């Protein structure tokens, strides 16, 4: 097995709010290899967005704890200062496509300029060269080249998202984090964006971290799957295995709640509400909603249990005595 391009071990992120301490990332570990697409699935408030942004060191205010080890290309980036991280890692080793919002692009600066910006900052190109590259990139993501002189508000939501994707690609970083890249788009646009992402992966040999709450969508673009719940990864598995035989009760409930076109199955839903990251339940965080909850689940946190080649689950059901 070649070295992973991204290796995260025991990452923690806690931050303070008026009401208390939010444990957004509570001991997360995973690996990402070259040209691999890892889907991270979870509900809102599971910490997945915090994880995405933490990888780029985009931290909230009032950070209380941020430690663990994050190795990118062999280098421990947690040891770098902010300035070093800015210049060596951001957009050079890892970039992010944020949630599809109306607001990801600066409204008063032309698209071309914004696209060219990372090249000017990180690749030391001059403006003309960078703008040329920007136009190439626009073409690559399927936007007419003359839009380089347009402003963001002149584009539709889908086009804006393409621009943002182009922006994440333009410096050719090996890792791209996709934080719910299609959640604000209509279904048709979503499909075209997903196609674009797939072709990029094939073309450019990048690794994705694809964060979403939409399980069906994740199946389109995942080699491996990690399920996040209450700031932790509760199941990690390779895609084929996951979608057919999910191990963790939560994953099982998630998959059975997806309606299918051809089968006439009973739609199950998950009772209860998402756990509070301020005051997580004791023991296994999922136990209040778990149909298989046992006594030990209420008291002790389940360990990480290997259940096969490159897959593990954190659930007492799988603990051997």
């Amino acid at each position, binding site marked *: 097995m070649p070295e992973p391009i991204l290796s995260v071990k025991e990452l923690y992120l806690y931050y303070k709010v008026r009401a208390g301490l939010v444990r957004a990332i509570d001991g997360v570990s995973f690996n990402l290899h070259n040209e691999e697409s890892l889907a991270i699935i979870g509900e809102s408030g599971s910490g997945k967005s915090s994880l995405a*942004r933490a990888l*780029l060191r*985009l931290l909230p*205010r*009032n950070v209380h704890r941020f430690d663990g080890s994050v190795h990118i290309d062999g280098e421990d980036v947690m040891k770098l200062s902010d300035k070093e991280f*800015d*210049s060596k*890692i*951001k*957009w050079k080793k890892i*970039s*992010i496509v*944020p949630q599809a*919002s109306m*607001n*990801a*692009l*600066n*409204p*008063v*600066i032309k698209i071309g300029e914004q696209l060219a*910006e*990372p090249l000017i*900052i*990180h690749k030391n190109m001059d403006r003309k060269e960078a703008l040329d590259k920007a136009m190439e990139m626009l073409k690559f993501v399927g936007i007419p*080249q*003359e839009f*380089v*002189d347009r*402003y963001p*508000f*002149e*584009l*539709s939501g889908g086009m804006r998202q393409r621009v*943002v994707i182009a*922006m994440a690609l333009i410096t050719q970083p090996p890792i791209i984090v996709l934080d719910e890249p299609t959640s604000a788009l209509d279904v048709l646009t979503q499909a075209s964006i997903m196609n674009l992402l797939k072709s990029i992966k094939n073309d450019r040999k990048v690794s994705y971290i694809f964060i979403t709450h939409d399980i069906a969508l994740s199946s389109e673009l995942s080699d491996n799957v990690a399920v996040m719940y209450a700031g932790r990864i509760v199941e990690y598995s390779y895609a084929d295995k996951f979608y057919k035989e999910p191990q963790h009760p939560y994953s099982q409930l998630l998959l059975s709640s997806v309606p299918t076109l051809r089968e006439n199955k009973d739609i199950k839903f998950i009772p209860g509400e998402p756990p509070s990251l301020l005051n997580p339940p004791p023991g296994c965080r999922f136990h209040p909603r778990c149909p298989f909850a046992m006594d030990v689940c209420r008291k002790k946190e389940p360990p990480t249990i290997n259940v096969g080649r490159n897959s593990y689950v954190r659930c007492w059901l799988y603990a051997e005595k």
Partner: protein
Amino acid sequence: MVPNVMLSRHRYDTVKRLGKYIVMRGATILITTIIAIYIVILVANMGGYVDEIIKTEIQFYVYETIRNNPAYKGLNKSTIDRLAQEMIEREIKRLGLDRPFIYRSFNYLVDALTLNLGRSYRLTSASGSRQVKIVILERLPASILLFTSIQLMLFFSSLLTGLYLSRKYGSKVDRIIVSLSPLSSMPGWFYGLFLIMIFASWLRILPYGGIVDAPPPERPLLYALSVLKHMILPMLSWFIAYFAINTYSMRTFFLMFSSEDYVELAKAKGVPPREIERKYILRPTLPPIVTQLALLLISSWMGAIITENIFNWPGIGSLMWEAIANNDPPVMIGIVTIYAYLLAITVLLLDIIYALIDPRIKIGGAGT
């Protein structure tokens, strides 16, 4: 690069749209100004009541003159009355009071709009002229000097501090400024009273009021220094009153804009903080900030009446007050007209500048 044909077509559309926009705004503003000035004319003349007061005073004045004039001694009553009538009528005609007010009000309106501000009823300028224009222009520089300095000082200090604070949200400095904001519930002139009490009455190191020492120094340098010395207390009073709240709103303003998604993305891209501040925070916020400054400047030239009164500052504010106290509508109307014009022009200019810098207006709502 980009095909020329498409560019020029794009440009032509933009220019046409801009042009239409400007004309529409200009017309609306003009009508608004006209109506506002007319209302002021009506109020300043109290719908003709001032005329009655003045007529009575003319009568009184004429009889007094006749009585005191030795040349008219010994004339019998009817002759005196006739003489008085003549003089009164002449005076009334001179002031144009013989025609009914409603007609005159429209004449006033036209005069005001063409900036033909006429002559005052009572007030005179220091140079002795009764021309309203001269009376006003003589006092305008004092207000502009003082209040432009005040507004610029407040603007830049609160902008820079607000920007700094938005970066250091929650820090001690931040909390200190926020806790000082109740200071702004009191107007500048109120602090002025106290400052005069402390620095002029008790410590005796700064003057009570006025713009320059009496007698004024001859040498220009000393004169300027004396003026500066007199500006200290008024500026200080406004600073204490408005610095905290202005900084607070600038800080809030910048905070709101700093949490925008595109700022987050810029940070993710590794854009250096200085550039983020310039391109991603300041540039989008510039239009509303500049508008605010321009409007503040204009309204400040009206001269805060009370502040000028308390500090005895010979500007437009105290002139307006004198005009009211002396029943002098032409001066009142003159001041308000000039102010209305300045305001209208500024608003129009700002609209144009906005349209030019904010691409959303320039290109019009395509795709929004």
